[in-house]
């Protein structure tokens, strides 16, 4: 059963407009969330994160919003650029004590930014 869900497999946006990527999670014990970006034939690279004690984190054109009561987070990219075209993965840090923890990923959303 998926604990992190990205229900939109793809999203197409015009250059300069806002891209909004959504993510839902089921486990209320998750307290740290991340977005990774992946280009073809490359590994995922870290983009931005948010702790559950915050509801917003901003880094340049990228902002992540967290709604804990709805178990929902979103990534906003403003303005979108063609170089942002990639697959975006939402992930939760699944920490279960001591030195044990791993990332739980969603299926990813493929973003296409059209010039």
């Amino acid at each position, binding site marked *: 059963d998926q604990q992190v869900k990205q229900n939109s497999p793809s999203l197409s946006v015009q250059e300069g407009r806002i891209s909004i990527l959504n993510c839902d999670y089921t486990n209320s014990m998750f307290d740290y969330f991340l977005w990774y970006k992946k280009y073809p*034939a490359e590994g995922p690279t870290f983009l931005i994160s948010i702790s559950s004690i915050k509801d917003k984190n901003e880094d340049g054109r990228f902002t992540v919003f967290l709604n804990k009561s709805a178990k929902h987070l979103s990534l906003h990219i403003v303005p979108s650029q063609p170089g942002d075209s990639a697959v975006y993965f939402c992930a939760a840090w699944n920490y279960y004590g001591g030195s044990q923890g791993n990332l739980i*990923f969603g*299926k990813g959303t493929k973003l296409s930014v059209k010039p």
Partner: protein
Amino acid sequence: EAGVTQFPSHSVIEKGQTVTLRCDPISGHDNLYWYRRVMGKEIKFLLHFVKESKQDESGMPNNRFLAERTGGTYSTLKVQPAELEDSGVYFCASSQVTGTYNEQFFGPGTRLTVL
């Protein structure tokens, strides 16, 4: 500083054969993770090493998969015998600190195709 490297980048084998994937983490990173992405699905955790010790192998699909990290440096993931459902992209990631979330750096992945 060199990133996480993986070898080979691609491997095509027949069902029943053996394949060994290799991962070289970033130097000095004690934590090494293996993940797998089957086509169109989420990136799934397989196992976690802290130095040479297996910390968590709860994600390993079955006993056809064997991971090692001799000397706490590079790691290998052997699949023997390979089955069709083992096809996918295998990612390795490393991080410096154990316990609380510490950024994981991913390699480019090994694409395994089992025919």
